[in-house]
């Protein structure tokens, strides 16, 4: 290697080492440990006894078997798919609709409106979950139940979260969807503000309606942002479990139809009762593979490599 090359490596490593260390400690090492653990029968954190015992694909075979025969695990997988699909659509479309709606109205009203939609994201997870816990509570203390009873729509309180599967799913999707919408809204709003106003004025003068402008000009110009939000939300919904954990823990929603794969991994590894880290690790590996494939597909779809242009000048 010539001198220039060595200098370059030196510079590069200086600037990159904090991030490389971060990735190493918080991503690579845990990933390797997870993959390793998935090949051991580790349980109840009995490291001395199980960590160095190798069981091959046993945990994966168990997952496969459960997937075929265990109704609880089937419910988890089904819940994950339904939750991910519907919440993703709500997040992206909701964010898009909100961004467009606030774009076309008076700026002062629009920013107040946006702030309102940011509240779910700003409030602490426990507080936010608690709000909806009381709202959907299955007894007469639940806000929804008491409103409906006062209005005379129902005579007995309904345990919404225990109606399976759609009652539990609806709450799951509603609570998480409300948090996610604001992310898309912010990204899309800033994308819209980057679009020169003249494009919209020109279209208006040519006779375009708000719908025409949104469909033919604004949305095509936000293509990258839409795909970006789609990828980001897909990955974050795949791994989110905070709100879901609390809602299940507080018994607001049905345990089987309220648990996604991410929460299942958490519960299996750290939850109450018998903990099975080997199985949890195998499920986590599956989850990671799904995430990697999904992320890779969308990056391909985004033509991400096209966005990464080589910098100009000599380096």
């Amino acid at each position, binding site marked *: 290697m010539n001198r220039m090359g060595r200098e370059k490596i030196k510079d590069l490593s200086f600037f990159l080492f904090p991030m490389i260390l971060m990735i190493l400690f918080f991503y690579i090492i845990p990933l390797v440990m997870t993959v390793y653990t998935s090949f051991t029968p580790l349980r109840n954190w009995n490291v001395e006894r199980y960590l160095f015992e190798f069981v091959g694909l046993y945990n994966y075979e168990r997952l496969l078997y459960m997937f075929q025969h265990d109704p609880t695990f089937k419910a988890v997988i089904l819940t994950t798919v339904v939750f991910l699909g519907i919440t993703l659509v709500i997040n992206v479309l909701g964010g898009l609709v909100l961004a467009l709606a606030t774009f076309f109205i008076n700026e002062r009203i629009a920013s107040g409106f946006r702030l309102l939609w940011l509240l779910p994201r700003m409030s602490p997870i426990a507080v936010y979950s608690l709000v909806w816990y009381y709202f959907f509570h299955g007894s007469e203390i639940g806000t929804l139940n008491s409103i409906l009873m006062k209005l005379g729509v129902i005579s007995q309180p309904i345990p919404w979260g225990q109606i399976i599967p759609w009652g539990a799913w609806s709450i799951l999707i509603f609570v998480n969807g409300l948090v996610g919408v604001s992310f898309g809204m912010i990204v899309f709003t800033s994308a819209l503000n980057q679009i*020169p106003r*003249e*494009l919209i*004025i*020109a*279209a*208006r*003068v*040519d*006779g*375009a309606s708000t719908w*025409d402008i949104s469909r*033919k*000009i604004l949305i*095509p*110009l936000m*293509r990258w942002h839409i795909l970006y939000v789609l990828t980001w939300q897909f990955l974050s919904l795949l791994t989110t479990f905070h709100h879901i954990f609390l809602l299940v823990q507080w018994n607001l929603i049905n345990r089987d139809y309220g648990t996604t794969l991410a929460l299942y991994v958490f519960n299996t590894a750290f939850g109450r009762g018998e903990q099975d880290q080997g199985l949890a690790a195998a499920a986590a590996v599956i989850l990671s593979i799904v995430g990697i494939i999904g992320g890779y597909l969308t990056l391909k779809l985004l033509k991400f490599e096209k966005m990464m242009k080589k910098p100009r000048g000599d380096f």
Partner: protein
Amino acid sequence: MVEITLKGITKRFGNFLALDNINLKINDREFMALLGPSGSGKSTLLYTIAGIYRPTRGRIYFDDRDVTDIPPKDRNVGLVFQNWALYPHMTVFENIAFPLELRKVPRDEIERKVREVAKMLHIENLLHRYPWQLSGGQQQRVAIARALVKEPDVLLLDEPLSNLDTLLRLEVRAELKRLQKELGITAVYVTHDQAEALAMADRIAVIKEGKILQVGTPNEVYYKPKYKFVGWFLGNPPMNFVEAEVEGDYLRVYSSRIPVPSHYREIIEKLGIKEVILGFRPHDAQIVKGVGDGLLGEVYSFEPLGREQIVTISLDGVFIKVFAPEEESFTFGEKVTVEIREDRIILFDKEKEVALEYLYKD
């Protein structure tokens, strides 16, 4: 092809008065320039004509039709922007076709009309390209094509040349002027570039702080400015202004004395005015070496420009600029006399900064 009449147009943005009682008539097939410094309200006026802004007060007529409350799309205007506002995700063809698509024009007719207008603007070989693949001049042509394809009654242009480089601007200037006359379309052209307005327009409306100061042919506004501001804003270098005092039939300008121009004698007498501002254009005077009849001063600096040179002369510390032929040579500090072409002198009221003849008429 319409005649545009603006009656008492006032536009407020909150507390800010953007347009103040604008009255203007733009004739059929006329090329009208709205000229003014930035923030003068000229673009606001253009967008009011387009219907993007609604006037706070006043009416707008296209011929006899009151269009004040009619939305932009029903006014049949073509709009060209400073940044051209081409849709980046559409090809040139799609950009030009867009207004027709919105009007639900049949596909084959769109095809025909787009090709026709593209041919007129010499961009027929660029139709499949995207805006980012075009040069500034080509993008500008596409923007004009898009404005013209729907055969508008009025073409509105908002500083369409200011994003082009100087040479290209001169070229497009000539072409645009020709195009407007060939199409016989009523055109309103917003610019802050006085040379552009003088070169292209049939008439110029000079706007300052939301008010129209003067409307007239390029010659009128250039040679007969109604306000000191108009004289200063048009022409490069701008009009010279020096303070003068009336002393009988003479004007005292610092240490010099020149006769009152004959076209002002009667006016000055009637107004009984004492203090005036004398204005003249840099090319309406000549420099004579030594002390003679005229404004006495000394050469401060001189800048050869090729065909001619600009000489800056200090009249007792006040600078004026005068054109001189290229072959003449000057030295710094040289004593000279400036002889002004008498019939081109404009006298302004010192307080109101209005040309005396207008003061007299009012």
